[in-house]
């Protein structure tokens, strides 16, 4: 599965604030890229621009050579990019399992005609999806709550559910906004292990925004550091975190 994401000179302003200032990043095929930076440095905004939630004022987003700038979120999903939300957005009144099943790509049962008259068509798909959902539940340690309403989950479990939905969606690239914030460290490491194995086996790519450097840094290939909407450093994890500019950005706020 190829996946090559680039942003070219992406700029996004909110009134007087320049949340993104000519940002260039690249997530190469089969890579796990991390995006760090102090609060308010523009990380979530960048994800929102890539995933089609915001239109950039300037610049382009390219995915596998296609210019996807300004596409709608559901169109971007179809290219294989799936995002998670920093603040979880579960379908609250649906079961955990249904939250996962909803992420299934082009489910025939989601058309009115099929839903009414061609049950064989979607039941088969539903069974496959269910099988996959059980694997995801097991990985994320959510089996016990599978038939609970998502509204009844704990904060950490909701973060896990965000990841679970993305894994269900057969993505090529997952944009994760703080996936392990609030998740217990041992599970967080398991999730990171799984991410690496998905990269190795299914050749998925990841762009991970995370403040928990202690947990995530060891698993990633490349790090971008942002400050005030600009990329201030890029490279191997060890190089970026010892970059004086990065240290300065974190200390100076």
């Amino acid at each position: 599965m190829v996946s090559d994401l680039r942003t070219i000179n992406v700029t996004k302003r909110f009134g007087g604030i320049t949340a993104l200032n000519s940002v260039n990043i690249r997530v190469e095929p089969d890579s796990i890229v991390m995006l760090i930076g102090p609060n308010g440095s523009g990380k979530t905004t960048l994800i929102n621009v890539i995933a089609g939630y915001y239109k950039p004022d300037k610049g382009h987003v390219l995915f596998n050579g296609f210019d996807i700038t300004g596409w709608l979120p559901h169109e971007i999903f179809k290219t294989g990019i799936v995002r998670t939300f920093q603040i979880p957005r579960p379908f609250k009144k649906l079961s955990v399992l249904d939250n996962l099943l909803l992420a299934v790509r082009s489910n025939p049962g989601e058309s009115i005609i099929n839903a009414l008259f061609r049950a064989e068509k979607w039941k088969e798909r539903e069974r496959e999806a269910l099988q996959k959902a059980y694997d995801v539940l097991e990985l994320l340690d959510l089996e016990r709550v599978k038939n609970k309403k998502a509204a009844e989950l704990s904060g950490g479990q909701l973060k896990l559910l965000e990841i679970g939905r993305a894994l269900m969606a057969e993505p090529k690239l997952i944009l994760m906004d703080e996936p392990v914030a609030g998740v217990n460290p041992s599970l967080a490491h398991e999730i990171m292990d799984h991410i690496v194995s998905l990269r190795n086996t299914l050749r998925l790519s990841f762009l991970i925004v995370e403040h928990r450097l202690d947990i995530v840094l060891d698993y990633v290939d490349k790090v971008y550091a942002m400050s005030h909407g600009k990329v201030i450093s890029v490279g191997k994890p060890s190089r970026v975190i010892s970059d004086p500019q990065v240290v300065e950005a974190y200390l100076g706020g």
Partner: protein
Amino acid sequence: MIDILRIIVDFTAFYSIYLMLSVSLNLEYGYTGIPNFGKVMFFAGGAFTVGAIAGRMLAPLAGIDLSKLDYCMNNVYVGSLVSRYLAQHAGLALAVFIALVIAGSLVGAFLGWLASYPSIRLREDYLGMTLVVSGELLRIVSLNYDPLVCGTFGAKTPNPFSFLSGFAMDFTRSAFMFTIAMLTWLIVGRLVKSPFGRLLKAIREEEEAAEALGKDVVKVRMKVLMLGSAIAGAAGALYAFYIGIVHPSDYAPLRTFIVWVMVIIGGAGNNLGAAVGALIYLFVDRTLAIAKTYMPVLPFDLNYLTYVFLGIILILVLIFKPEGLIPESLEVREEIREEASQ
């Protein structure tokens, strides 16, 4: 005895109409979260279709030349001649009935499609207001534009069941109506239990997350509004045939709010709830209507008492069962149950 049967038959006819309205609003609001405050517009769309077409279309068959006669001034007369003609042609009468109910639902769907345009751009609350206003617009235009349903005169609808008479006629008509309503209820019930229904709830719960998972929220909303409006249109057509006349002032916003009360009392997001809500409304409304005929003259119109009762029921439900008498249920997938039983 026949009196009670008559009441039941009348009850069934009204229930069929309310059931369809309540099911359609529940699909839109209860499942999908679309605040359709314009339900009456789509209901009127179906009723006006019957009012505008039925008499005019059948008049030539009944030997009336509409170019020599002002239809609106004489529509009661024309309507009764047409009914008399239909009495001799049962097959044609039923075909016309079915065809116009379908036409009513198509007009409803078309209006739903039109109304879905603002829903692409407007936030939910503004959409609600827009729908109220468009419903009023349709009513006011039709009140003042005779070619539609003869404005303030109203348009008489021919009786497609005039080949029967007395109780047999009422019974057959109610049976037809109830069959259509039950079919609608069953179809919607099947739909909301499918992945499509799950998608609707997801859109209601968290629109942006649904988009992130590739769902075309705008398109789904459009489909739902069209389907819901088609159902309301069919209900309007049935209503027009049932009461025998289409009068624009009958299609005031109050009707919309009554349907909302049914859905909220019954339980939004539950298909059975919609059926129960409609039943409760009907019970209050019809009981009082019947009571009225037995009551001495009161200093006020007993019909208003319906609203008092409904208001009280609504408040009690909101206090004690805020999610309705039959709340939305958590869907547990079949296969899971199988697994549990193994």
